[in-house]
């Protein structure tokens, strides 16, 4: 019809990975490929060796991977935090090494004279975790994203599922129901082997007290009670600051201010319950990411952010993230435009910096993931 007519066009958004629930994966298959390849991916991240001491001609294995490789297991943990008393000489860990583990401020894998990143790189990329701050959620969302891509790269190279994504660990029983398996460390994380091979999902350093005398968390002891993982904060907190804390400033590791309701419960409670006392990984800022459950735990916190946002939308409440047009004005702009430094799956510095406004919608690039379950645990009740 000349210049006019009818055109039909499809609109299919880019692919989205589904971060699945640990419990549903396990119920499908206790050695589900997503878990098996998570273990194998961590195994790859933990590989590393260096000539120690320098000039010795001796290649020494570094359990946990090299500290100067941005994609290693230990480097990824150091992004969150690293013991402050590390010192170097000529780019190597200084002798005598830092205080030995099990102190909170020690690196359990430290080797005297092992290679370290430069002081400027350590200042720029390490010790960056945000707590008791408006950046708690977006910073951890970015942190999970880049970690996930590193693991994914290994999973694909090892022939694992191409749609692999980090699972989340939902330890909260539905409101009003007693806790069952939610009170336990998930079974595939408790044994030193999985499918007949080394289980990198297992760490021994889960030393919190349990309700079952003589049975630690790794032996299936109940280490959580409902109050510690209650989701009431989702319901009672009406602003971003109420839910996930403030102030709107960078706050590493979180020594000032106070947590929001969900940062405390369940986030802090799960860390302290599983990490327990001295020597537990999950309780220390620098050691927590050395427990593979840390990442599943934070996926769940990240999911709860989405659950809360979706719930606020359904309730018609525009107070769901710091929002320039609602109440938070310039502070919201400051929050949205804040950028952080990370490395990508190839070990390159992400440039330009990823900003908070890039990570608000998980379903679009660069994140492109969604959670298996983002339903409102309170079914829309106000």
């Amino acid at each position: 019809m000349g210049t006019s007519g009818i055109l039909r066009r499809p609109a299919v958004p880019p692919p989205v990975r589904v971060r699945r629930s640990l419990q549903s994966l396990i119920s499908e298959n206790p050695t589900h490929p997503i878990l098996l390849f998570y273990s194998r991916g961590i195994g790859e991240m933990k590989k590393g060796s260096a000539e120690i001491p320098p000039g010795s001609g001796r290649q020494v294995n570094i359990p946990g991977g090299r500290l100067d490789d941005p994609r290693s297991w230990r480097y990824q943990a150091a992004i969150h935090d690293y013991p402050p008393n590390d010192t170097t000489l000529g780019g190597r860990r200084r002798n005598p090494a830092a205080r030995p583990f099990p102190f909170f401020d020690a690196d359990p894998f430290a080797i005297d004279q092992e290679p370290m990143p430069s002081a400027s790189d350590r200042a720029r990329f390490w010790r960056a975790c945000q707590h008791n701050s408006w950046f708690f959620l977006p910073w951890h969302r970015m942190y999970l994203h880049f970690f996930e891509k590193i693991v994914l790269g290994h999973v694909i190279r090892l022939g694992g599922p191409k749609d692999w994504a980090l699972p989340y660990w939902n330890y909260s029983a539905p409101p009003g129901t007693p806790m069952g398996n939610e009170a336990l460390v998930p079974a595939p994380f408790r044994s030193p082997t999985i499918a007949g091979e080394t289980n990198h999902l297992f760490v021994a350093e889960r030393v919190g007290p349990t309700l079952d005398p003589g049975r630690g968390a790794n032996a299936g002891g109940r280490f959580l009670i409902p109050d510690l993982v209650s989701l009431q904060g989702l319901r009672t907190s009406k602003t971003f600051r109420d839910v996930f804390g403030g102030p709107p400033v960078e706050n590493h590791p979180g020594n000032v201010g106070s947590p929001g309701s969900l940062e405390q419960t369940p986030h802090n409670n799960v860390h302290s319950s599983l990490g327990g006392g001295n020597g537990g990984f999950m309780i220390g800022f620098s050691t927590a990411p050395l427990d593979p459950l840390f990442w599943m735990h934070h996926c769940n916190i990240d999911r709860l952010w989405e659950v809360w946002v979706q719930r606020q939308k359904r309730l018609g409440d525009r107070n769901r993230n710091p929002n320039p047009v609602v109440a938070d004005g310039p502070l919201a702009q400051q929050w949205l435009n804040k950028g952080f430094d990370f490395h990508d799956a190839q070990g390159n510095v992400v440039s330009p910096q990823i900003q908070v406004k890039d990570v608000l919608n998980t379903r679009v690039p660069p994140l492109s993931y969604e959670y298996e379950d983002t339903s409102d645990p309170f079914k829309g009740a106000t």
Partner: protein
Amino acid sequence: MANGKDKPGPSTTEGGIAGKHDDPGRFEVLLGPSTGGEFNTARLPLAPVACFRVDDIRFAFNSSFIAAETDEKNDVRSELKLLAELLVELPGSPLSVFGHADPVGDDGPNKILSGRRARIIYALIISNKEPDLALKMWQEVAAEEKWGASQRTNMETTTGLPHGTSDKELMKAYMKALSPPELQVGKTDFLAQGVDPKGKGDFQGCSEFNPILIFSEKKNKELEALKDKTPRNDANAPNRRVIVLLFPKGSKVEPSKWPCPSATAGITDCLAQFHKDGDKRRKTREPERDRTFDDARADPAKGTFACAFYDQLLTSSPCEKALSIVKIRLFDAQARALPFAPCLVTLNGKTTADRATGAPPNPQGKFPGSPVGSSSTPSGATKEDGFIKLRVLDFPATVNVKWSRPKDGEGSGAPLPKVDDPDDFEFEMDVTVTIPDDESDAASKLRLKNLGYDVNPPKPIVGLEDPIRAFQTDYKAKFADIVVDGTLNAPTAKAARTVHDACDPVLKSGSQVPLTR
């Protein structure tokens, strides 16, 4: 106000269009019957400043009855709102209504039919302010056209009035329901101010004298060869329209000097206004190519309007163009069609809220684990579900769409999303509309992007499989000649075009995980 410099783009709805005209200062208009180049006494630059159009789809076929739909944005109410908006921008602009028929049938009867549609629209426009006159006009048309049970049923459904309500009450209530309350226009607000009892100067029918679309010989032959005349009548729909012109504030005409005959009169006075080659203009067919109103832009002598008076009034009018339609089908990331998906559509800087089409039973975002590579249309939905429809003057390069999967229970009647909450949406895409009509690499990449395989993503998605390889993997079962090799070769380009143009992708990997939202 009529300065072309600040003329915004026209607004369109499903069944109409409204827009402003170019600067009217550049020509003068005859105010009385006249021939050739002579001008009569009043050299008033009477040129419309804006126009407003109601399309055929608002009328029942071969009738002047305007049918209401369940959703008011699908009926004439959306056009009347456009008119009310125009009048807010151009207060005090007098109006005149022109009805048009399609070139099927004889000039005489078509003059009467086009006149009736003009009367119906005129009456509807004044119905808030002058309900009695409006009612009388509708009753007259109803009697001429013998409206019956189907019109009554539609009016009863829309107004909620019980069966047995008198025609008068029913019609009055129906007009009230159709006309937005902000539209407050009386007969004195028209160009001849309602002086003539037959409405000369205020509303008229132009028969089939001014088509905006004349089929090519080839197309005409094909359509006439069909036994079923529906395709021919559908293709002719752009010609059946009612145009309302808005003139500069203070404009006024004497009915006796107005060149158009009244809506109920015969065609003689119309013929007197024809271009010398008027019949040629309105009837000539080109062998292969359709002629349109736009042809006059390149060469005024090649216009399609026979009536010189109307031609002059409507030069460059944004309302006299056959609107094109863009239909965009919304999917989720695994390429499942999304009936009833709420969305925001941004085109030329204007954002509107919409909801995709759907037909019960409604899957509403809940999908059983369908195998990868199977139909993107889960059981219960049809291949026409999940579309949004845009009417445009010209095909845009892209349209920005933000959308979400519908929530449980959301159907066609659910409230539309709010335009000021853009972060409410799960997905966003610049959907490419204009794509070269070939299978070149450039065209194929645009099609693949619309299908969710973006080979040049604005932000990298780390770990994502090569998009061409991913497409080949997903479609090799459907197209036997596809080999998974990551190259954009002929079979891949052809498959992308077939799937793209049919808006019928297959499910992508990841779709087996049921989501709880």
